[in-house]
């Protein structure tokens, strides 16, 4: 009898150039917004591509059944998600079609935690459903030009990578707009409708990217993305649409900064108990974590490593300069796009600042999970009054994040006033997790209210004055209007402070439109009493300036 052959790991069959036109590339792991834009980048390069459906509880159950026990929930959810999709395809189109007409593409060929070992979990799950021949490709998250993947069907080159990176950045920027607007919208649901339209504008921009004209030279491709007005012009269209959303920012809402494990904090869905949505419904304004910060963080590692080699390898100096240049360019690009959106999206924090803030508690060279960033971000938000509380999402049994969370104990000892809600996410213990968050949120709400009331008093602001402003300075009701950070954590408090500082402008507005047809803004009881069609003449109330 022949001996059993030695065990071999999963190795995907090649995905050839010829197969490209008939093969749908599957991908996922971000929000629907990011994914739709990435799809645009794929379509632009003539790939068939489709994001996996949003994560559900059923994915957790499927994942648990198929992989070794004890995995972290991002691994279980994402494995289950892929498997459930493939099972459906197998049922609808047959096994052969499920195997041959689709291929999966993800980041994950890196990292010291399970993130670097997704391949093993996924392949085990494929074995479990009898689809071992299904093709999966794991790409490094730190290389721009990874060349042809096995078979050449997927070319990870500059046009594709820049497309994906720009899609991620723009996905982040629009997510910032979304979360700054929805809690204050006057017409419920309007933000989501406009957001969809805006994502479609940007999808078209990605799909129609004039890549043919710039393809060929990788540096030219990168340069075009950095300097051309192509995407910034499209973003101007977005902000023009955004302007049509009516908001009332004179509200006391706790600002909740989300941090945590990469997948879990980015995700919007069952994977994290829809916690961002839940927080909004509980009356909070959420500061979502941009993927852009993660990419910035990843770029720091080679920089640190090169810096360390300076004394032993002369060639590193040039590489350091190049990498620093790339990082500068990255920030510049992000800020340039922010400017096209009236600078509404938040600025990326400086990685140096985050590392310095975290230094007494966590060494910035330790990677995996969010590392020191988890600490740096919480401290940054607290010390700069950018949020009332930080909600930190850690997957149950996550290896790196538990270490950062442990180190946070020291931070909390030093800053007992810092409101910090570390939420462990298992995927199936929603009530427990949300009630933990609720406890801290209640305190955050109190602080937001207190802060708002104090600012109202300090600025001598009254509902009547707010009414007057609403009638005379309609631009403040436009969602595209940026409320500057005036030193308070809450948007409402910053808004009131801003109004009190804008005397000149308001007077001008008043002179121009002494008689106006008022439109009521919701949640202000005084205003609802004013008939919407009635024409009134208003007097400028007295404002006290901070």
């Amino acid at each position, binding site marked *: 009898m022949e001996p059993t052959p030695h065990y071999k790991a999963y190795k995907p069959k090649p995905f050839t150039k010829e197969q490209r036109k008939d093969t749908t590339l599957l991908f996922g792991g971000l929000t629907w917004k990011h994914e739709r834009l990435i799809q645009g980048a794929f379509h632009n390069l003539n790939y068939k591509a489709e994001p996996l459906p949003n994560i559900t509880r059923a994915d957790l159950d499927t994942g648990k059944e198929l992989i070794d026990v004890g995995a972290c929930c991002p691994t279980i959810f994402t494995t289950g998600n892929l498997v459930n999709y493939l099972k459906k395809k197998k049922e609808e189109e047959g096994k052969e079609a499920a195997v041959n007409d689709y291929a999966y593409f993800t980041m994950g060929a890196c990292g010291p935690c399970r993130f670097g*070992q997704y391949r093993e979990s996924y392949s085990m799950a494929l074995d479990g459903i009898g689809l071992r021949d299904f093709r999966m490709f794991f790409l490094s998250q730190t290389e721009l030009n990874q060349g042809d993947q096995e078979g050449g069907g997927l070319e990870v080159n500059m046009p594709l990578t820049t497309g994906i990176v720009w899609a991620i950045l723009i996905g982040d920027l629009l997510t910032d707009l979304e979360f700054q607007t929805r809690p204050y919208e006057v017409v419920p649901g309007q933000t989501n409708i406009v957001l969809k339209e805006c994502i479609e504008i940007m999808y078209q921009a990605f799909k129609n990217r004039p890549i043919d004209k710039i393809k060929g030279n990788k540096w030219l491709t990168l340069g075009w993305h950095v300097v051309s007005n192509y995407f910034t012009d499209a973003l101007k269209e977005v902000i023009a649409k955004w302007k049509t959303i009516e908001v009332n920012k004179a509200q006391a809402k706790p600002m909740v900064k989300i941090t945590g494990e990469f997948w879990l904090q980015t995700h919007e869905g069952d994977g994290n108990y829809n916690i961002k949505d839940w927080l909004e419904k509980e009356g909070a304004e959420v500061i979502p974590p941009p993927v852009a910060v993660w990419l910035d963080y990843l770029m720091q590692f080679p920089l640190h490593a090169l810096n*360390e080699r300076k004394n032993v390898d002369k060639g590193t100096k040039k590489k350091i300069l190049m990498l620093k240049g790339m990082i500068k360019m990255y920030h510049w690009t992000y800020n340039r796009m922010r400017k096209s959106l009236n600078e509404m999206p938040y600025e990326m924090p400086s990685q140096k600042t985050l590392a310095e803030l975290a230094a007494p508690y966590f*060494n910035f060279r330790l990677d995996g999970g969010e590392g020191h960033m988890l600490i740096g971000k919480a401290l940054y938000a607290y010390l700069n009054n950018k949020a009332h509380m930080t909600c930190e999402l850690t997957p149950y*049994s996550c290896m790196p994040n538990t270490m950062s969370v442990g180190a946070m104990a020291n931070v909390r000892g030093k800053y007992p006033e810092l409101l910090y809600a570390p939420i462990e996410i298992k995927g199936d213990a929603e009530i427990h997790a949300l009630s933990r968050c609720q406890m801290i949120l209640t305190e955050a709400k109190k602080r937001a209210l207190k802060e708002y009331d104090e600012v109202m008093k300090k600025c001598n602001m009254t509902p009547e004055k707010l009414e007057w402003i609403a009638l005379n300075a309609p631009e403040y009701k436009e969602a595209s209007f940026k409320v500057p950070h005036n030193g308070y954590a809450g948007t409402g408090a910053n808004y009131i402070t801003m109004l009190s500082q804008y005397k000149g402008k308001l007077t001008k507005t008043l002179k121009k439109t002494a008689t106006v047809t008022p439109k009521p803004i919701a949640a202000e009881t005084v205003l609802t009493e004013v008939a919407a069609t009635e024409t009134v003449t208003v007097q400028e109330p007295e404002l006290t300036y901070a």
Partner: protein
Amino acid sequence: MNIQTLLTPFARKPSKELLSKDRSTVRVGIPKVLNIWNTHQFWIGFLEGIGIKYTNIVFSSNTSEEQSREFGKGRGTVDCCYPVKAMSGHYGELIFGQKKKINVLLSPLIYSMPSSLQGHVVANNTCTRVMAGAENIKSGYMKEKDVFVENQIKYASPYCTLDDRIIVPQQLFDGLKDIFDLTYEETKKAVEIGFNALDTFNKKMQKQSMDILEQCAKTNKPCVLVIARPYHMDTGIGHEIETDLQAHGYPIVWMQYFPTDPTLMNWLFEEDIKEKQIKSPFDISDVWPSSYSSNTNEILWAAKIAARFPWITCVIRLSSYECGMDQPTFTPTQKIVENSGTLFFKFGDLDSTKPSGSVRIRVETIVHYVKKNSASIIEKKLARMKTQWPPVKAEALV
């Protein structure tokens, strides 16, 4: 397995003139945890190299429930795997439990490890909890008040990439210069001494393993390979399960000290190399392409060894409670071993208490199977080999 951590008085030491300061009275405590278990010789060599007397280098004792109770209580900050959780007790023992007080508590952040697989795998990183465990544990001793300061102990936690020897002097100089008042030159020299001590020790241990393997081959007797993380050698973490087995007369080989002798390696892997499955005996891409983590890589490599070396008829796999790194390796490791007909037994979820009763029953079961099946396993595995034992002397097949 008990490894002596202190006896390196004959290691090469720098001459006194090279040292910028007299540090002979400084006492340094090292928590004997995680990857200290396979780098202790480096740290001893290094400390001696900067002039610390070896009698002033104190390791905490093996992990135990008493240690946790007496010294680590209330210091935990987060729930995680036992080897990390247990660190609190080690810190406490060094701070509070020494007759002669320590001056420095040295708990390095070891980012990457030297490994025999280095150069054949993607990376040699440690588990993210191994590298950052110290940051988590120290926080339990600082959250209310700074216990280190209170006890006049300097806390030192240098970051280091031990797989990249050339930059270790700079890293340790940056991390320790203020603690020991070091110069770069003496740090560099001490690092060299540290690595020499580590290499010498590893060679010695590999030689001992080789003797066991040769003896088994010569007498056609089975041995047992332990596949585990280095800290499972700690009697409080691995619970001496392999010792119970050894008591039944089966020699034990730990994967960390499996010999890398080229002749043996070529004998085991020449077919795989010829078939272009792998490029070298230390290449594990055929079974584990995600080869980023050094201990995990070695686990997979050890499973391949067990699948091939005829006289290893049984593998004992140890894994701690809530070990996230082990989780994805369970099935591949078991399959690699079992596909070859070798027996495989896993002791998972190891925690603070030794499940003595169930261990005893399982050890008896293992002994029963090893006794019953070893002869046929050896025969079958020998039949797979293309050449006879002892193999012809060879240079490394890389």
